């Protein structure tokens, strides 16, 4: 199976600070890969590089087999962009547009779909993420944090992407909302056959969703594999990250849930 994302020997540098030193990572179709790492380990930067928002100092990033920094062809890049969706940490909804227009915008920008199809498809997307049609005409400023995340997810899913990026999907949500958001992502992943790349600090979200976990530390990916494999790796960062009280709690909860299933 060809990987959806293939990162080879990636170097990132901000002035004198080296963030990634010869980093390698692969994302295979259909998985939910989580990136974890300490603050400043360059998780979000890696996500932005995979989206083509930031150029690495050295190395290649291939998405769907296409080098996103080497390609000069703007149309191909555009087509590539339409196959991926991104949920930004704070939603990044366009504040001048209603929720409905925010979700409809990517479809309208194709400039070929008829308006009534866009309307129905937008309502369906809003329904998928659990928003009511009454919320559709609200402005982003009038929404709560959880609703902003849902609306932003609906916009990310507007063009039925094969690859979905999530930046801190449950940060800033209360536990019950974050549980329902995790459930939402899981069901969408199943029904839409998505590949998901996620950055998260939330251990519960991490164990609930990930099929694989990639740990960023020492400017590289120090471990990448199924959750139980990664947890067993002996490395100071991993021991600190998963071995703390919260880590043990989340891990215990996850194991007992798995045994029940």
């Amino acid at each position: 199976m060809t990987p959806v994302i293939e990162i080879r020997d990636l170097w990132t540098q901000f002035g004198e600070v080296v963030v990634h030193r010869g980093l390698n990572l692969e994302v295979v179709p259909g998985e939910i890969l989580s990136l974890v790492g300490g603050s400043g380990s360059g998780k979000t930067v890696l996500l932005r590089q995979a989206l083509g928002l930031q150029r690495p100092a050295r190395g290649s990033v291939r998405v769907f087999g296409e080098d996103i920094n080497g390609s000069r062809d703007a149309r191909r890049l555009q087509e590539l962009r339409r196959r991926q969706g991104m949920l930004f940490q704070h939603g990044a909804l366009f504040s001048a547009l209603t929720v409905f227009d925010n979700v409809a915008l990517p479809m309208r920008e194709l400039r070929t779909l008829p308006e009534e199809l866009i309307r129905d498809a937008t309502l369906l997307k809003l329904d998928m993420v659990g928003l009511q049609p009454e919320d559709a005409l609200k402005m982003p400023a009038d929404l709560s944090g959880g609703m902003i995340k849902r609306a932003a997810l609906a916009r990310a899913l507007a063009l039925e992407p094969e690859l979905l990026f999530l930046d801190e999907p449950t940060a800033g949500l209360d536990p019950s909302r974050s549980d329902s958001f995790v459930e939402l992502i899981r069901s969408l992943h199943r029904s839409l056959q998505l590949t998901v790349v996620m950055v998260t600090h939330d251990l519960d979200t991490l164990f609930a969703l990930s099929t694989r976990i990639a740990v960023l530390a020492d400017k590289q990916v120090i471990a990448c594999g199924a959750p139980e494999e990664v947890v067993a790796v002996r490395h100071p960062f991993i021991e600190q990250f998963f071995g703390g009280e919260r880590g043990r709690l989340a891990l215990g909860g996850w194991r007992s849930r798995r045994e029940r299933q």
Partner: protein
Amino acid sequence: MPDQPLPQLTIRRTDRCQVAASGPWQVQALARQGVIGALRTTLAAVPADTAVEWDLSGIDALDHIGAQMFWNAWGKTRPQALTLAPQHRAVFERLEQASALALPAPPRPARFSMDRLGRPLLALTDHLLGFVGLIGQLVLDLGRFAARPARGPWKEISANVYRTGYQALGITALVGFLIGIVLSYLSAQQLHTFGGDIYIVNILGMAIIRELGPLLAAILVAGRSGSAVTAQLGVMRVTEELDAMLVIGLPHGFRLILPKVIALAVAMPLLVIWTDAMALAGGMAAAEFELGLAPSYFLRKLPEAVPIANYWIGLGKGVVFGALIALVACHFGLRIKPDTESLGQGTTLSVVTAITIVILADAVFAIVFSGVGYY
């Protein structure tokens, strides 16, 4: 990827009408130029009775937007004769669930209503009240500042003087010099026809020192610093910095507005002197060039032609204009709501209002000092 297969729809008419679909029914393929149009023409040719047999088993890939097209063509119900690939069933089930969704009608405002008539009036009153409140707060803050000058926001004042004053020297010099040249040329030609060449000094001196210098500087500063102040306060609102200041115990009036008003009230008269000098230099250069009037004569004649009162009026205008620009910019900056559109609107409104108010104040000056500074 131009060699990709396209979604296809074919109608077979035997004893019953059969519609067969094949290819990828996904948004990327459907969005290709002309695809939707062709499919809709074919769909329109399908008879609208229930005896049509739909065969969708030939579809390679289906997403919600492709399925929605069929769903809309079916009049949002499942047709009686439908053949589906098993992996595509879930998509249609999802659509069936959501088929009752409808966008609520947006509330349509009545064309003529008291509300619409009264709204601008209310907004104006609101702005006027807010502005008066701002001035009142400024007076209180000035009192507090005067009572304990050592604890005043000196650093903020100094930073603002640098930003609104020093950094505006270049643009005011350039514009002042050019306007001086233009004015000089214009007057020189008219005066020459009457043989009153030497009166160019009077015209330039009075016009620039009394009116144009302060006005030019004020308009430039309103565009330059007024917009910057409004945008800065607006972004601080968006990022909740304004709220954070209140929580820490830093009142907006004393720490944000007062330093800006004092800084502009200090910097503007200095900018006025600078603009006056530059405009006079431009006028002097043009007068020498056009009329052959020596700069030494120009400079010797200037104090006789322009009574010193005009200079003080110009400086006074500078202080008032500076304070007004800062107040208007702060007024609009603090009213920006946390969204991008409001930021743009607020900044535009702030600059337009600041320039209008400056010109209004200039008219007031002209009336009040109508008997001062002339021979």
